[in-house]
């Protein structure tokens, strides 16, 4: 029993805070794994991260207006995706830059909202919470809403699965079949907007990006077909959340005592190490190489 206590501090499985954190964390990990796989295949990691930051701006606006922050997150993410689509940029490099410009604008807006907010009510604790979030402060009452959002995000992926996969791996092949890869791209952005809004508000922007990209990037290296890629990425995501929360719980007795180390630090470390290991297990298979997905265009010059 003492050996078990060395690994799992007493009370881990009986705490309701931990139970909520694990349920929401694992749910987010699975959705992020599926959406993240396409994010990695489409080289849209920056968009995935940018949406979590941009969502914060919507959250801050909603907070000022007195409506639930989640609606602010979702609305601004969908608006951003729509604006980027409306610009109609085809080149991957230009898309990245446009994302950056919009992110700069959104963060600027956030700084204004936070300024207005702190001058009105002077609560910088709220500010930091909005920015960094915490998996250990989730209220269990929001669980149904998150499950609904997760289901909606997955629905967009499932409904367009074949087209999306083709559009992500070989857009030219889709064009040959007289179908535009843009439609699948839009469905994907909606799924990404929802998934990132859900994860950013539940577990913070750090973990949101880490769970979206890390497990999927590792799984793309390990998996032989799409099904095994999804299984690998979900498993890696869920395990890193579980052990991250566990280690954070244990760290209450590490120096400095009775303080506890943040969950995000442990989860990110586990994901990063897992990815490093996959780099050495197996060389990248040819079909996912950037040479295939990042054909330089003349318009980039």
């Amino acid at each position, binding site marked *: 029993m003492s050996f078990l206590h060395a690994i799992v501090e007493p009370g881990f499985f009986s705490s309701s805070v931990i139970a909520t954190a694990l349920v929401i964390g694992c749910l987010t990990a699975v959705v992020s794994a599926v959406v993240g796989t396409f994010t990695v295949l489409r080289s849209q990691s920056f968009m995935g*991260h940018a949406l979590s930051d941009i969502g914060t701006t919507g959250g801050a606006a909603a907070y000022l207006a007195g409506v639930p922050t989640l609606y602010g997150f979702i609305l601004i993410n969908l608006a951003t995706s729509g604006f980027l689509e409306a610009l109609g940029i085809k080149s991957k490099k230009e898309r990245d830059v446009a994302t950056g410009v919009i992110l700069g604008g959104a963060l600027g807006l956030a700084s204004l909202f936070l300024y207005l907010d702190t001058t009105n009510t002077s609560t910088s604790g709220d500010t930091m919470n909005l920015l960094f979030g915490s998996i250990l402060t989730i209220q269990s009452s929001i669980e149904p809403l998150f499950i609904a959002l997760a289901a909606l995000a997955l629905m967009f992926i499932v409904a367009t699965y074949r087209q999306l996969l083709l559009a992500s791996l070989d857009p030219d092949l889709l064009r040959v079949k007289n179908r535009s890869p843009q439609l699948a791209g839009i469905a994907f952005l909606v799924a990404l907007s929802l998934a990132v809004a859900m994860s950013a508000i539940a577990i913070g922007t750090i973990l949101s990006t880490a769970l979206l990209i890390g497990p999927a990037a590792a799984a793309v290296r390990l998996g032989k077909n799409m099904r095994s890629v999804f299984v690998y990425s979900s498993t890696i995501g869920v395990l890193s959340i579980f052990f991250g929360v566990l280690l954070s719980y244990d760290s209450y007795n590490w120096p400095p005592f009775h303080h506890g180390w943040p969950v995000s630090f442990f989860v990110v470390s586990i994901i990063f190490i897992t990815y490093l290991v996959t*780099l050495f297990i197996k060389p990248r298979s040819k079909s996912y190489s950037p040479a295939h997905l990042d054909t330089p265009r003349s318009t980039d*010059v």
Partner: protein
Amino acid sequence: MFEPFMINAWITASIVAVISGLVGFFIALRGQAFIAHALPNGAFAGAAAAGLININPLFGLGFFSLLGAGTIGLLERKSKRDVATALGFVLLLGMGALFLSLSTEYSQQIFSLLFGEILGVSPSQILPTAALAVITLGILILSYRRLLYTSVLGEELSQKALFRNQNLIFLLMVALVTTMAIPVVGTLLLFTLLVSPAATARLITKTPKTAIAASVILALLMVYSSIAFSYVSNWPVGFFIGMMGVASYTVGQLWRKLFA
């Protein structure tokens, strides 16, 4: 607006804007706005670590932005660029979260690093900023031509051994700019200055040299007018510069659609 205490702000803003406009050109050309976001925000961990062991935040920022640049540069050799950037970035952020939670410093101090306090720059901060600017400028001039070639080439070519060093030099430059600019203008201002002026400049010019010139001029115009607006309205500088970035880029896109 031109009182003695504001002079420091104008000088520092000029230095940061010129260097950001120059380095930003390569960021836009390479399509690596993610790096411009990842290193300044990630290097934040360095400021938190410096606070923890009570040293000058400049050393912490320098160490962690170089660490981030190195990590991303090495990962890039075996991974897609955006994945490498994302993973290096979250690793830095995770460490930042740890250092922040261990330190007992008041969060307001961290908050000011995020959004910057250009209006509160002290004269003693100008010298290190200028020195780092000169070093960055030197690297840029020495490797200008090679950087230009490798930036124009696709990602798969730049993974070849011959070009790897150019990737690292590019990352090193962004790390230096990060160390230079964060203590004086904050991550948000730096990020916008690195991306928006250069992105707009590329849309309205045809050659690299005119693009660089336009990028520097736009960066200076944006930062000057933002500080002026902020001084008058008391709203944060970051808000004005962010909005101007989006506005100028949108105008640039329309310009290109109409005239190119």
